[in-house]
C-alpha cells in the first residue's frame, strides 16, 4: 500500500504546484466538454421548446429518440463518429479525426439528447396556469412561449449541468475519435486510463481528484438549481 500513499502524496504535490502538462490537460477537457455542451444547448433548447409547445408530425418519434439516446454508450458514439470522419468515411475529407474538433462533435452528440430530454421535461412541467396567465394578460404566442421557457430556466440549467457532468466523465468517445495524443487531444479521462494502465498513478490520481472536484461542483450547482426551481 506504500506505493499508493506515495502516489497520493505526489499527486497532491502536483495539484499544489501544477505543471504545464496538467494545466493543458485540464484546460483541454474543459474546453472540449464546455464547447460540446454549449453547442448542444444551442440546438437542444429550440428543439425541446418545439417538442414541448408545438404539435407537429413525428413529434413523438423525435421525443422517443431523444429519450432513448440519453443512455447512448459513449463508445458507440465514438465508433460512429470515427467511421464518419475516418479517411474512407463520408466526412473524411475534412481531416478532423484525432483533433479536438471531432472530440467536440462526439461529445455534442452525447450531450444533445440529455439537454433536449431534460429541458423538454422542465418546459412541460411548468404550471399550465402560468401559460394561461400570460395569455389572459395579452401575450402573443411567442411571448407566451418565451415566458414558459423562462419559467423552466432552472430545469434547463439543470439539463446543461447534467450533460456537462456526463461528457466530462466519459472516456470511450474521446479516446476513439481523439486518439489520446499527448499535448493535443489528451483529456483528463483518457489520461487517467492511460496512466493507470502504465502503473503511473501520480498524474492519474491528481486528475481523478480534479474530476471529482468538478463533479462535486456540478452536483452542488445542480442541487442549488433544483431547489431554486421548486415551486413552494
Amino acid at each position: 500500500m506504500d506505493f499508493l500513499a506515495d502516489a497520493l502524496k505526489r499527486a497532491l504535490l502536483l495539484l499544489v504546484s501544477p505543471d504545464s502538462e496538467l494545466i493543458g490537460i485540464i484546460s483541454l477537457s474543459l474546453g472540449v466538454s464546455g464547447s460540446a455542451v454549449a453547442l448542444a444547448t444551442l440546438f437542444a433548447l429550440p428543439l425541446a421548446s418545439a417538442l414541448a409547445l408545438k404539435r407537429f408530425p413525428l413529434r413523438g418519434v423525435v421525443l422517443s429518440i431523444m429519450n432513448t439516446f440519453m443512455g447512448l454508450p459513449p463508445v458507440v458514439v465514438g465508433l460512429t463518429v470515427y467511421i464518419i470522419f475516418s479517411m474512407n468515411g463520408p466526412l473524411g475529407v475534412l481531416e478532423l479525426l484525432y483533433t479536438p474538433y471531432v472530440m467536440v462533435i462526439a461529445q455534442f452528440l452525447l450531450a444533445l439528447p440529455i439537454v433536449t430530454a431534460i429541458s423538454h421535461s422542465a418546459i412541460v412541467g411548468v404550471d399550465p396556469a402560468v401559460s394561461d396567465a400570460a395569455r389572459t394578460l395579452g401575450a402573443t404566442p411567442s411571448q407566451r412561449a418565451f415566458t414558459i421557457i423562462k419559467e423552466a430556466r432552472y430545469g434547463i440549467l439543470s439539463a446543461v449541468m447534467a450533460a456537462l457532468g456526463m461528457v466530462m466523465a466519459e472516456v470511450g468517445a474521446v479516446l476513439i475519435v481523439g486518439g489520446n495524443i499527448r499535448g493535443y487531444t489528451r483529456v483528463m479521462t483518457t489520461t487517467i486510463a492511460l496512466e493507470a494502465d502504465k502503473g503511473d498513478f501520480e498524474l492519474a490520481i491528481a486528475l481523478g481528484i480534479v474530476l471529482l472536484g468538478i463533479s462535486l461542483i456540478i452536483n452542488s450547482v445542480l442541487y442549488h438549481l433544483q431547489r431554486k426551481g421548486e415551486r413552494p
Partner: protein
Amino acid sequence: MSLTVSVEGIWKSYGGHDVLRGVNYSFNPERIYALMGPNGSGKTTLLRVLSLLETADRGEVIYTDGTTAPLEHNIALRRRITLLLSSTGLFNASVMKNASYGLSIRGIRGDEARERAFGALSLVGLGEMERQNALTLSSGEAQRLAMARAIAHEPEVLFLDEPTASVDIENTQAIEGVILGMKGTRSIILSTHNEAQARRLADVVLYLRDGLIMEG
C-alpha cells in the same frame, strides 16, 4: 368608445356534458356584474369563453371594437381585456416583475412600467414587497399580486374568476376595495359563491342555472 361585450347563443360542453346551453347576454359598459351559481354551473367556463381563453362550441362572443378578425387570434383586442384566473399562475420572479408583465409585453418598459406597476402594487398593499419573489408570498398576498398584475395595464374589461376564493377576511377586504375603486371606470365581470359579496360589489347580479344566465 367603451369596449362592451355580449354573448349570443353560447354553447360549451366537456365530455358530452353541456355546461353552457345557449347563453345570451349583453354586458353594459363600466358596470360590475357578479356571476353566481353552484360549483360546475359554468361560471369559470363562461369567463374563459368571454375572455377568449377558450372558444365556444357554438354561438358568438361579440366585442364592440369594430374588428372582424377571428376574436381568439385578435391580439389587439386581447390586450384590452384581462381575466384574473382563480389559480394565480404567478411567475417565478419578483413581485415587481410579475406586476409589470402585462406592461412589458405591451412594449412599456423602464420608469413608466415601474411607476404603473408600483401604483397597482400599492393599490393592493404590496408596494413594500416589490423585490420579494412572488412564489414566497402567502396565498392572500399571491391573490392580491395577481390582481395588481391584472390591472396594472388598465384593461377596459376585467374578468375576475372567484377573486377572493381561499383568502382570509383581510385580503378579501383589500381585493374588494380595489374592485370598488374601479367602479364606473371599466366593465368588470366577476364570479363568486358569496351572495353578500356579490351584492356589495356588483351593479347586477346574475345566476347561472342549467347552463343559462338569469338576472337576480
